[in-house]
């Protein structure tokens, strides 16, 4: 499952609409190992094409190095399809080289319909996943619910009943 902030998703769709009829592309960076889509980086499509995209090599080096410096990875790699559905093309699958990334596709074929889908692509195998849109990403370290200590059996910690602990079905 991919969790996206609503503002991030809106910015990606706006980017895709702006570059239509050419494909738009970019990444969302997040801390390594976190799977958190935190920092949106819209990028140039060096191909400027309605049927193909490729990150500009110089920009990619700069952005990848910046992610390295910040201990981030490309959590999401997104691009748009401008005349077809938001599903990976054969070329998308052939080029996909980040099995840990979420490949987010946006289709701009219908100006009135938002079509956004996400996939894992690993060695030619494509798996669609749910996209959950939230106002803000969950906090980085989910609070660990500690188990309350003490007796949790059928009888409360009442001294009068302690001798009955462990009894089952006794009336």
């Amino acid at each position: 499952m991919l969790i996206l902030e609503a503002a991030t998703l809106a910015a990606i769709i706006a980017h895709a609409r702006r570059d239509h009829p050419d494909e738009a592309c970019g990444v969302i960076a997040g801390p390594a190992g976190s799977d958190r889509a935190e920092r949106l980086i819209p990028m140039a499509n060096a191909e400027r094409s309605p049927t193909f995209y490729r990150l500009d090599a110089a920009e990619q080096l700069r952005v990848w190095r910046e992610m390295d410096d910040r201990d981030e990875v490309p959590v999401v790699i997104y691009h748009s399809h401008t005349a077809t559905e938001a599903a990976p093309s054969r070329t998308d699958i052939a080029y996909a080289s980040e099995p840990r990334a979420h490949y987010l596709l946006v289709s701009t074929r219908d100006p009135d319909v938002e079509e956004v889908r996400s996939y894992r692509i690993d060695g030619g195998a494509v798996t669609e996943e749910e996209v959950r849109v939230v106002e803000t990403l969950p906090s980085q370290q989910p609070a660990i619910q500690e188990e309350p200590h003490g007796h949790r059996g059928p009888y409360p910690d009442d001294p009068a009943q302690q001798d009955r602990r462990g009894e089952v079905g006794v009336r």
Partner: protein
Amino acid sequence: MSGDGATLSALLSDIDARHPGLRDRLVTQDGALHRFVNVYVNDEDVRFTGALETPVKDGDSVTILPAVAGG
């Protein structure tokens, strides 16, 4: 990792001798760089500096990134 050679091609062959298979992942059977990798010498995309014949010298750094591309 480090290696020797006067060109990117020679350098990749030198490193391939110690890490077999590396060159094949970057270079096609026809002896050209694969389209789906980006190779940089000192941060310059080698597509603009002579591809595999890009000269390299002591102290140069080579960076390899998978191209992010599709249709």
